[in-house]
């Protein structure tokens, strides 16, 4: 099961079972609803953007351990970052999904998802939250 262990590292299971930033804001903020029509995963992402900075992020959704842990990590990764920085993070995440070695000094948890690149059927699970992030930033801009 070693290849499986690559996929389901402890960090991933931790984010899956104890999700960070899970929930909704009371106030009116940018909200992106996205789903994977082929598999039924869905995410509702909320971003609080002020002065070009992602001040806070929350999400709710339904999906597998990969999609939900990725959402938890994504919200952790982009909180407090400038819009450009957040997009740069998303770009690095995409590269990692293509199997490239990418540096994540700024949020190391995310590297746990590098194993997903070996499971082509699951890349769309891991990418859902990041696609929502890009959409949210587009809507804000």
């Amino acid at each position: 099961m070693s290849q499986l262990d690559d996929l389901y590292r402890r960090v991933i299971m931790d984010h899956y079972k104890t999700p960070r930033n899970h929930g909704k804001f009371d106030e009116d903020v940018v909200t992106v609803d996205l789903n994977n029509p082929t598999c039924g995963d869905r995410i509702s992402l909320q971003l609080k953007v002020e002065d070009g900075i992602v001040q806070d992020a929350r999400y709710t959704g339904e999906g597998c351990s990969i999609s939900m842990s990725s959402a938890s990590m994504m919200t952790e990764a982009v909180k407090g970052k400038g819009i450009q920085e957040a997009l740069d993070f998303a770009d690095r995440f995409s590269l990692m999904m293509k199997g490239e070695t990418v540096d994540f000094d700024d949020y190391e948890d995310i590297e746990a998802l590098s194993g997903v690149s070996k499971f082509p059927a699951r890349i769309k699970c891991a990418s859902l939250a990041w696609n929502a992030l890009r959409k949210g930033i587009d809507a804000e801009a």
Partner: protein
Amino acid sequence: MNSEWIKEHFPILNQEINGHPLVYLDSAATAQKPRAVIEAMKHYYEWDNANVHRGVHTLGSRATDAYEGAREKVARFINAARTQEIIFTRGTTTALNIVASSYGPSVLGEGDEIVITQMEHHSNFIPWQQLALRTGATLKFIPLQADGNVTVEEAENTITSRTKIVAIAYVSNVMGVVNPIKQIADIAHRHGAVLVVDGAQSTPHMKVDVQDLDCDFYAFSGHKMCGPTGIGVLYGKKALLEVMAPIEFGGEMIDDVGLYDSTWKELPYKFEGGTPIIAGAVGLGAAIDFLEEIGMDNIERHETELAAYAMGRLSEIEGIQIYGPRERSVGLVTFNLQDVHPHDVATVLDSSGIAIRAGHHCCQPLMRWLKASSTARASIYLYNTEADIDRLAAALVQTKEYFA
């Protein structure tokens, strides 16, 4: 029936996936192909390939004979009264869309009804939903019982004199229930409606007799019954097909083309515009030969036994939820493991060489009814064995432990 022996006929099953012998339990999505089907298509392309119904040359005749020969096999296989009632299509989806697009608008007006169920696959759902929106007809649903079954009584309560079309699956691709088609056909006809049957999940697994069912239209796909992808069948009663307008215009389907109007060929050709799916039909014909050699009765009996075995083995697993009725005659089990998402189940199973489906199975309305956003599904066919089910059960227990 010796499934180990049958397995030998399927080259693809003789391989390892992720270091384990492949156990293929996703035949409801698409079935594997026996050597006989692959060889028949290869032979067609290597020896007989030409366009049909036009060439004067020898290859043209051979190709035409092969194509029309396949049509005769299909007609016999589902016991259609006439070969002209067999229209080759791209698959079940196209077949159902032809009925919805051509027959639908000719009989429906505001206030008329289309009756379906919430268990339908999207391909027997959306065409009717969109037809209702287009024509102003009302879309109605025969309510499902708590266990997922459709009863004759509920069908009787739903179908009225305003109903023009009733469309229902013979077998559900999620819950494995077999619907009472014959009785529903009778109810539909008493109210002056036609019955359209989605036969995608029934035709591969049981003996089908469209005259005995007395359905007006019946659609199925080749690839779920050991044939190739890209070929399917629309059966329709001649009297209905004859008055229906063609959907696709072009070569092959015309009688006489004038500058300002044209006339169409007789059945079934007016519904087969363009160069048809010749090699696909040849492959489907070979699949029918293969299934008939084993015997549809034998296949059905084998699957019924294996389905009962699978229900027994999977029910033993703690924390499993199985959807649909406890008793089933069709080899299809849809389930969820507590606290493990079906994608994760499917990935862990795949790492043990076991292929199952995870997702909504093209049945979002049914998923809502089941209150599940996604489920896992193991589906069996003639080549599966008890040993396959044992591997599945063991891997599911492992999956639970892995995520515990």
